[in-house]
């Protein structure tokens, strides 16, 4: 029975020691990054940043955009993170008070539209919302060409969209369609298309041959294509908007100086070239060329997208969407 006692005592000791398990911080300085970008790109960022700043350790906390924002909001009284990296601009716009103003030394290189006016956030990549088509299931000459084409009966059940109440990019699609045509057309699209919970499905299920057509950001098409999936991007001819995703310093974070250095790095040409080569995204910097294989902007009809009005109208438009959606 001695063993029992020993097990019991060591158990008690282990439980007592649990709160002290915080591992000591090794480096002189740390920066904590809440990251919604892909692991591949984040790893490349960390490696390059650390070559330039050997004394600073980067601690990465990853998750979906919503999950990271929830963390930041719940930690508001005592922020734990320094940087939020990767969500769409309207995520930042929804609560600008969470972020610190910082005029990055790279600011001049950016398209002014991609930088928040008080310098709360600056753009990472700019992405067009497009149709992703599985060409084995739907030949390119039979796809919808415009947003309005989505109401045609021949596409019933063949179009996958994410539920705008549950996905930032899907909300921007909704907001764009409403800006172009209003609820009349949108209601018909709601009747025709399938709205799923996860925005990832709107390109994954197309790439894997589950459904012929979906709505997604253009880089998802390029990435799936690189993976060998039979997909193509179709840019709506009635116009599509550039949606910006961004990065910002979290206000009152634990490491404000290191945070500034990290943001300067993220905004640098070097980092944006990684963004283009690894994630196949269009950079928000004026001096970085888009990845090969993406349609040049000159060949796309671009309509403006107002993130401020999008954030303002979001509640009302989602309420209206929910009414139509629940009647299906």
């Amino acid at each position, binding site marked *: 029975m001695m063993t029992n006692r020993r097990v019991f005592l060591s158990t008690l000791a282990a439980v007592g020691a649990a709160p002290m398990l915080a591992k000591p911080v090794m480096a002189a300085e740390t920066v904590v990054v809440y990251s919604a970008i892909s692991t591949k790109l984040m790893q490349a960022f960390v490696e390059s940043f650390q070559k330039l700043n050997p004394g600073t350790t980067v601690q990465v906390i*990853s998750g979906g955009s919503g999950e990271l924002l929830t963390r930041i909001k719940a930690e508001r009284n005592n922020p734990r993170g320094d940087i939020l990296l990767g969500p769409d601009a309207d995520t930042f716009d929804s609560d600008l008070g969470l972020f610190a103003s910082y005029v990055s030394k790279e600011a001049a290189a950016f398209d002014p539209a991609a930088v928040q006016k008080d310098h709360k956030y600056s753009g990472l990549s700019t992405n067009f919302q497009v149709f992703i088509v599985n060409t084995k299931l739907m030949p390119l000459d039979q796809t919808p060409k415009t947003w309005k084409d989505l109401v045609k009966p021949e596409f019933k059940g063949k179009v996958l969209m994410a539920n705008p109440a549950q996905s930032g990019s899907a909300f921007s699609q909704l907001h764009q369609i409403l800006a172009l045509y209003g609820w009349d057309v949108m209601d018909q699209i709601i009747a025709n298309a399938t709205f799923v919970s996860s925005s990832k499905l709107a390109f994954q299920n197309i790439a894997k041959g589950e*459904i012929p057509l979906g709505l997604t950001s253009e880089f998802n098409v390029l990435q799936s294509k690189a993976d060998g999936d039979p997909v193509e991007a179709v840019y709506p001819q009635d116009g599509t908007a550039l949606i910006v995703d961004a990065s910002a310093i979290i206000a009152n974070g634990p490491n404000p100086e290191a945070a500034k250095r990290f943001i300067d790095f993220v905004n640098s040409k070097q980092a944006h070239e990684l963004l283009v080569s690894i994630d196949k995204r269009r950079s928000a910097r004026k001096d970085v060329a888009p990845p090969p294989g993406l349609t040049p902007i000159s060949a796309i009809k671009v309509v403006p997208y107002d993130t401020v009005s999008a954030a303002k109208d979001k509640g009302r438009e989602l309420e209206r969407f929910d009414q139509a959606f629940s009647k299906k």
Partner: protein
Amino acid sequence: MRRLTGDPVAILVGGMALVVALVFLVYPLVNGLLLAFVRNGSDISLANLTLVNFERFFVSTSYRHAFMNSIVTSGGATLLAAALGVPMAFAVARVEIAWRPVVLALSVIPLIAPPFIGAYAWVRILGNNGIVTQLLIEYLGVRPPPIYGIWGVTIALALSYLPYLFLMVQGTLAASDPTIEEAARMTGASSPRILRTITLPLAAPAIAAGMLVVFIKALGDFGVPSILGGEMQVLPTLIYYQIHGFFNLNAGSAIAIVNVLLTIMGLGLLALVNRRSVSTLTGSSRGSVRARGVGSRIAANVYIWFVLILALLPQALVALYSFSLRWGDTLLPSSYGLDNYRSMASEAFTTMGNSIVLSGLATLCCVIFGAIAAYATARGRIAAKWAIDLTIMLPFVLPGLVVGVVYLGAFNDGPLVLTGTAAILIFAYFTRRVAFVFRSAATAVAQIDTKIEEASTVCGASWGTTMRRIMVPLVAPGLLAASILVFATLIGEISATVLLYSANWKPISIAIYERVLGNELARASALGTICNLATLALILMASRLAGRSMSDMFR
């Protein structure tokens, strides 16, 4: 009974348990639940109390749909799991089958697997372009119904949580006293009659408890309906988007309370079943008798492997995916290799190590606290037993993301700051799983006659000695089985973890989730397969160390 109120050791242990319960269970959860009764943006105070957050269940059609969908899919999954799992438990417990330990070990795997990749795997198997679908079309010319929607979700949920029910029922059937059935047979009762009047009533509490666990887990599952649900919404998807989409903790909390009410209804049904049940003295010297006839053995083996293969299909696909280097929209991967494992090896090693420490310590906390609380409620003269019961059961029912948000709010600033440490994850895990251990311990303690303890005290043993030498050894086997299930299911926890983990303590579930988010499903699968195998190996080792094989443990 006066021992609990008299002995200083007992008071100390009880007091510590009370403090733990107050700090880590009551305080954060009361905080979180009260949020449901104030408007978004206003403080918790008496003047602000309102039911407005529940209004949507009456006003919004999509909320009503989600509510019904949750009941139908979770209820359906529970019935299906029982229909598949009870016969399987019977076959494993009562028929002489081959490789019993292997069957039991394999049956734990669906519980280990981190949630999302299993749902993705079903798409690859039974989706419009899935392997099985394409084979059926090619060779039989039939197209199976689409998996997206109520049916797909129900089936996937049933197969994911079936092991709980199977292991619980199997354990009871294997341990139940054979003499009653023998007596019935000798007095001329037919086999169906014995099954109907003796075997099933004896197993009823375990079946009901297993069904309740399946119901609770299915009701809280987010991954399966979000991938396979199509347009269908359920309560967890609503909670997820109220919290992560709008940071409306009040609405999220209100939906969670509706979730809890549904579970309490389930508990009520369970109580009805238990009231009708018969109890026998367990712990008899020999286990149940196993059928040896050739016919029954063949039937049992065929059936067991049918269910097992069905439940393991997604994990088998994950294993296949982990070796694929390129898998477009073809039936099978177009090239294979070890690259995914090579690139993930060091990350798997570190994060799996973290997971083992975090889940292991949390399991330990569950065992210690759960056992003490179970003893206190069973033996102590505690007026509000139901209050303890509810306090411990509630977090088990609450969705993980609600527990995560509430913990973050409670322990990020104020008197006790735990964010950034391993402790916050350990205690959140503890909060989410202690009910499971508590239940098993309570059942075990209730079966031990108080006379044994009294005898020990009469012989002069202190309370501590009685505990250590009498109670712990008697309760330990049941606790071991429960703690193995707790450990296995914590390894894959994501919904609370993603809000609470810190960079130094990244568990493997997060490493997998990162790859899923980044659309690197092959690498996620490699990590998932390593995670499954490592956990399985640990479980087998633990059972060896404890001197029991898997087959002895779950009984």
